[in-house]
């Protein structure tokens, strides 16, 4: 599966990691293009159903990243999010989602280098897991006889 390019859905907080991605880009720090970013106002906005939706639709990995604890633009959004992530992480890991498919990180808008390293690491971790064949909706079949 050498030509497998993982698809990662990334949920970034607008105030930090999204900025870090921007800064990495402006600073010409190259990172893999395998993720599709969904910008959130805060990681506290992350509803677990977003993550399920991503996997359901065939994402090979999900990456959630926000501000370092204490740095939340909304004072405590990521503190609350952190407790949610504990449960979400535990649940998904327990039911058998490979741990490397789901990544949580804190990256501030100044940490372009951390962003670059993390992005590479996320993509490589997911690549090592291989395509997501088990934790998604079945491949869509139209069952239509092709009309010539």
């Amino acid at each position, binding site marked *: 599966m050498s030509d497998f390019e993982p698809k990662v859905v990334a949920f970034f907080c607008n105030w930090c990691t999204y900025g870090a991605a921007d800064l990495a880009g402006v600073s010409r720090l190259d990172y893999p293009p395998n993720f599709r970013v969904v910008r959130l106002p805060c990681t506290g906005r992350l509803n677990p159903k977003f993550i399920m939706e991503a996997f359901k639709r065939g994402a090979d990995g999900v990456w959630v990243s926000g501000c370092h604890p204490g740095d939340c633009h909304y004072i405590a959004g990521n503190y609350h999010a952190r407790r949610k992530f504990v449960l979400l992480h535990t649940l998904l890991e327990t039911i058998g989602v490979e741990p490397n498919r789901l990544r949580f990180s804190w990256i501030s808008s100044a940490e372009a280098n951390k962003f670059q390293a993390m992005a590479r690491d996320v993509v490589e971790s997911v690549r090592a897991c291989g395509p997501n064949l088990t934790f998604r909706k079945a491949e*869509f079949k*139209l*069952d*239509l006889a092709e*009309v*010539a």
Partner: protein
Amino acid sequence: MSDYLVSEKTLAGFFTALATGRRLLAPQGQGDDCRLAETTGPVSLDYANTHLSPKGVFFPQTEKILAFHKLADKPKANQYQDLGDQAQPTVIFGLRPCDARGLTVSNRVFQNDRFTDPYWKGKYESAIKIGLACLNPSPQCFCAAMGGSPFGEMGLDVLAYPKDQGLGLKALTPAGEEILKKAQAEPADLAADMAALEKKAIQSQGSLDDYATINERKIMELYKADHWAKTAEPCLGCGVCTFFCPTCHCFDIQDEQNEVGGVRMRNWDTCMSPLFTLHGSGHNPRPSKVERVRQRFMHKLKYIPLKQDGVRGCTGCGRCVVMCPANIDIRSVAAVMAQASA
């Protein structure tokens, strides 16, 4: 039409013959695990009834009906096309008479006075239905009170019953007769035997006069009665009753799609859900569980009999009685409906 016998010795061969050239579905497993499954025999006759009703054979919980391509280079892009009824030659052995009767109620909905549902029709009409009469109805059964019988024949091609470690069989339709002959069942005369067993089986069931009273009362009289709020109060609105009911046939139609195309499918739905009737405007003709519970019981005991020559929408299989988490018992509700004043 005549009667037939299959002895203990020829029983295995009988089921093999049934399964030749078509799939044989028969109940397998015990208790809550009892379900219709494909087999070539032997078939155990020792079961109460399948946990889920057999309606799923003809009306699967999820059924793809249409599909379309989306990409412009495909022929007929964005035009729905029929996926067919997916029917295959089938014989079902071991339908209980209550369930066979229930399927006829759905059949008259799926093939109503104006329209015919091709997906139901293809599967329902191509299946040969062999019933197994109930010698010992379960404690929650009340088919006789609903106008049926443990030896009921409605909706069946053949009615079988356990006899001397083998089977007694009564052909009810030409298709039934033909399959019994092909399976080399021996001709016999079982009328007296069956009548005696039926009488004994019915005795174990209470008779209920309430249903006759409900027949006589007008729709609005039953509808406006003052007991509905109380009747509905314990209801959780879960709809387990509707999922298990052999005559519940309501469904939702949904599209699912991806980048290249999509399918239209139908899925079992339940009148116990507020979404079932919710208008786009936000208006809901049955906004609370009181209206929804009333709808279910009125539908089973009043509306369906009105439309189907007196045949009730409840066949007395007892599934909802056992499965309702809040123990809303249709027998008790019928009694209240018969007595309550507006």
